[in-house]
């Protein structure tokens, strides 16, 4: 009944290792599904029919340089029919490759999906512009505008990353953006200093977050519910103060001095890249810095390791002497501050005053960007850019006049959101303890 005599294994202390190891590999290997190849093939066919075969035989013109650029590049002129057909054939090729990989039981690599999206967007652009009344748009303007529209989204999704990585779902991004926008407007107007307004926006966002943190961490209220309630609360309070205070005396309360665009000499004149990277407001530059800082912080520093541990396995963090709830509280607060800065973009850079619901649901799109970007700051950044692009494209395309009704174009950002979150780029897995309050013992 006893196995005191465990078989001696001279020279090899771990003989059983090979079996469990092989087994573990088999368990963790995720089965390759047909989802991606089928989706790609479907979109490839749509591209071929609409953007290729049904495309107008007209020339679409894409301006690359803006008037302010240091050196000018000629515009790209492409025949919509020919270009669309070529692109859609390439798309089908990519889809076929994905199918081929699936038959070999291998998943489609990430670059394939990304290339597919880029080509698909290009084909779509060709088709839309080619069919427009004025078949010419400025590519540089399109991209620069996308970045501008994406700024609050990026800040919002960074806020989401900071909160969810530490285990708190932040549905209140919308409220934090709105609170930031309102506070920036009123403080900047009263102090006549946009920088103080910017700082105040961060504080306002942080305060909204602290309420979320307090209720969800200390009082264990459902995080989604607190978040939703906060959105409604901030919307109500700012709306009330807007109509009772701001509108009464616009000059005193709602005409903030804006943050100027800072042009970096020479670099800002490089076509396409210049306006994106080197012709931004302070908030725009802060955005790039924030993305990098959060990424480096999360993945390269002690702080980040602890944050991620708390979001994945709070008990483990606790047993190693990390204060789970304090870590959560301060990270959620930090996230709120980041979103608040994003909110200031509305009133200090984009528009020169606050209006009701100025954030217009972008907090929720930021949430989608966070998921699409797989809880990674850089992923979230590019996802936010994509949403900004869809948003901007929709307005530009409406201006140049397209065969598609503008209402449909207005759906574009949301359509992209739904497709993205539905898992176009494979399944994304969030932090394991996200949304689950931590109770000791």
């Amino acid at each position, binding site marked *: *009944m*006893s*196995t*005191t005599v*465990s*078989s001696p*294994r*001279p*020279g*090899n*202390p*771990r*003989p*059983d*290792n*090979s*079996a*469990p*190891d*092989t*087994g*573990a*590999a*088999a*368990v*963790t290997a*995720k*089965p390759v*599904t047909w989802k991606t190849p089928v989706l790609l093939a479907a979109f490839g066919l749509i591209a071929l029919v609409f953007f290729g075969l049904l495309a107008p035989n007209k020339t679409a013109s894409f301006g690359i340089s803006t008037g302010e650029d240091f050196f000018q590049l000629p515009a790209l002129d492409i025949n919509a029919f020919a270009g669309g057909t070529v692109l859609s054939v390439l798309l089908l090729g990519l889809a076929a490759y994905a199918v081929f990989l699936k038959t070999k039981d291998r998943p489609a690599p990430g670059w394939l999906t990304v290339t597919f999206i880029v080509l698909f967007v290009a084909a779509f652009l060709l088709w839309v512009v080619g069919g427009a009344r004025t078949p010419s748009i400025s590519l540089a303007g399109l991209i620069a505008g996308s970045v501008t529209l994406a700024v609050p989204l990026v800040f919002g999704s960074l806020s989401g990353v900071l909160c969810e990585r530490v285990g708190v779902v932040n549905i209140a991004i919308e409220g934090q953006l709105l609170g930031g926008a309102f506070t920036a407007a009123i403080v900047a107007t009263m102090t006549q200093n946009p920088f103080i307004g910017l700082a105040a926006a961060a504080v306002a966002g942080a305060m909204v977050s602290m309420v979320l943190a307090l209720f969800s961490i200390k009082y264990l209220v459902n995080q989604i519910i607190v978040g939703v309630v906060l959105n409604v609360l901030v919307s109500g309070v700012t709306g009330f103060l807007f109509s009772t205070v701001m509108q009464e005396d616009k000059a005193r309360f709602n005409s903030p001095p804006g943050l100027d665009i800072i042009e970096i000499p020479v670099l800002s004149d490089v076509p396409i890249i210049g306006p994106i990277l080197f012709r931004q407001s302070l908030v725009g530059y802060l955005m790039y810095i924030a993305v990098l800082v959060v990424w480096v912080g999360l993945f*390269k*520093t*002690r*702080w980040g*390791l*602890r944050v*991620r*541990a708390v979001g*994945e*396995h709070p*008990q*483990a*963090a*606790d*047993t*190693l*002497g*990390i*204060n789970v709830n304090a870590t959560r509280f301060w990270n959620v607060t930090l996230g709120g501050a980041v979103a608040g800065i994003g909110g200031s973009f509305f009133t200090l850079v984009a528009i020169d005053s606050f209006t009701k619901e100025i954030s217009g649901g972008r907090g929720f799109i930021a949430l989608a960007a966070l998921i699409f970007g797989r809880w990674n700051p850089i992923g979230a950044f590019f996802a936010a850019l994509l949403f900004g692009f869809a948003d901007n494209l929709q307005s530009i395309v409406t201006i140049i006049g397209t065969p598609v009704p503008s209402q449909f174009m207005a759906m574009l950002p949301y359509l992209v959101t739904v497709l993205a979150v539905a898992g176009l780029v494979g399944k994304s897995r969030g932090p*394991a303890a996200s949304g689950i309050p931590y109770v*000791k*013992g």
Partner: protein
Amino acid sequence: MVRVLKLELRGITKRFGTLLANDHIDVVVESGQIHCLLGENGAGKSTLMNVLYGLYEPTEGDILIDGKAVSFRGPGDAMAAGIGMVHQHFMLVPVFTVAENVALGAEPTKAAGFLNLDETRRRIREISDQYGFDVDPDAMVEDLPVGVQQRVEIIKALVRNAKVLILDEPTAVLTPQETDELLDIMRQLKAGGTSIVFISHKLREVKEVSDTITVIRRGKVVGSAEPTASTTELASMMVGRAVSLNLDKAPATPQEKTFEVRDLTVIAPNGQHVVDGLSFDIARGEILAIAGVQGNGQTELTEAILGLQERVSGSVTLDGKELLGRSVKDVLKAGVGFVPEDRKVDGLVGTFSVAENLVLDLYDKPPYAKGISMSPAKILENAKARIDEFDVRTPSAAAAAGTLSGGNQQKVVMARELSRPLRLFIASQPTRGVDVGSIEFLHRRIVAERDQGTPVMIISTELDEVMELADRIAVLYKGKLVGIVPAGTSRDVLGLMMAGIHPDEHAHSQPAGSRPAATSDHAEGVDHD
């Protein structure tokens, strides 16, 4: 030489509300010793260790290290004092690498808080080489087998210079072979100067490895024992009365085979074949035990039979009638009694009374229901009879089931399932988290059911239980049947089978230490099927 410390717990009392989990416990762990805390589930061993590790604050009492009283405000303090703990449920972040997990909480950093994981990797390799752990610092923890994860936990403690290592039920998740390896590691650690507090309720292991044994019962130290004490002695100290560890059961008299499973396959939502082509049958008057390490398809197998799984193929017949594709209600109606593995989640409604829980499957049928109304008198009557029959210790039939002890909860579930005439009885982990006294009782009931001529299927990850109850033993590994062997098959063979190695193959490869090769060959064979 490493500084070795002496640890003393003096009068530790821990109260949770009205519950007294630890009552003036005194334990002295001499340096360089393996000190076992023996006690049943719920005796208060883990609570005591959580106090020692700084996770709980003691209501009363002192912790002394080398004679000096210390107070821990958190695990950080305990670790700083040289105490490390390997929890029963591993405290590892699955999506982190080994190095990240080991570094967490005591991260070596460069300037400005940047991680210096190279330092951690170096330490892991050092320790890994010293004890023959064979752990890759860059492996993702979720990809590692449980035994290796446990070593990562041990490394975590050693990197923090633990002088006293607490192992909380470390063998619960291991195969018998892995257990033997762990016991070896413990001896090595001891030789290297680390004291170990070994928490267990498994007598065999305790006797094998301990230097001193302290027995805890209902939150109190009831005595200490030498490892030379007999199993029966230890068991009665643990339980507080004489227990017979050996179930006297008559040999089975199998009759016709009424339960057949053919090519049963269950596909998990992620596409994995969690039950893969199982075929077996059970005769009336026979107990078939399904052995295997947890997570090898046992849960899905029982759920498939019950009709709780979605993507199922193959066939399951009881008395010639197909069960697959039928609703759970139909399956129960066909005479299947089922004790689920997690009684709190699937077996009981904790907030319902004991009486209500006893008719969860029959509440809508006469005599408990008349049309749309229930008859509480009948339900109570039934409850009283069952409570007597199964010796359920409950304040009353109206007490909420969730307030009973684990053993009594399990008796309620078992009483309900056995109160109907059955054509098949399935019990999953029938005695998990149940006190030794109740185990005896529950085992007798299962055997009694067999003797009435019901085919019985037991799923257990406890090899002792399997060996005690089974007339035949089927071993599952990664959803496949490794083989079906007769009762009385040795623990070693069963252990190998639980690691996926078929006994015949093992017999061929036994000589000359060729086991590694045989092992990997077999594993490949399995994966390519």
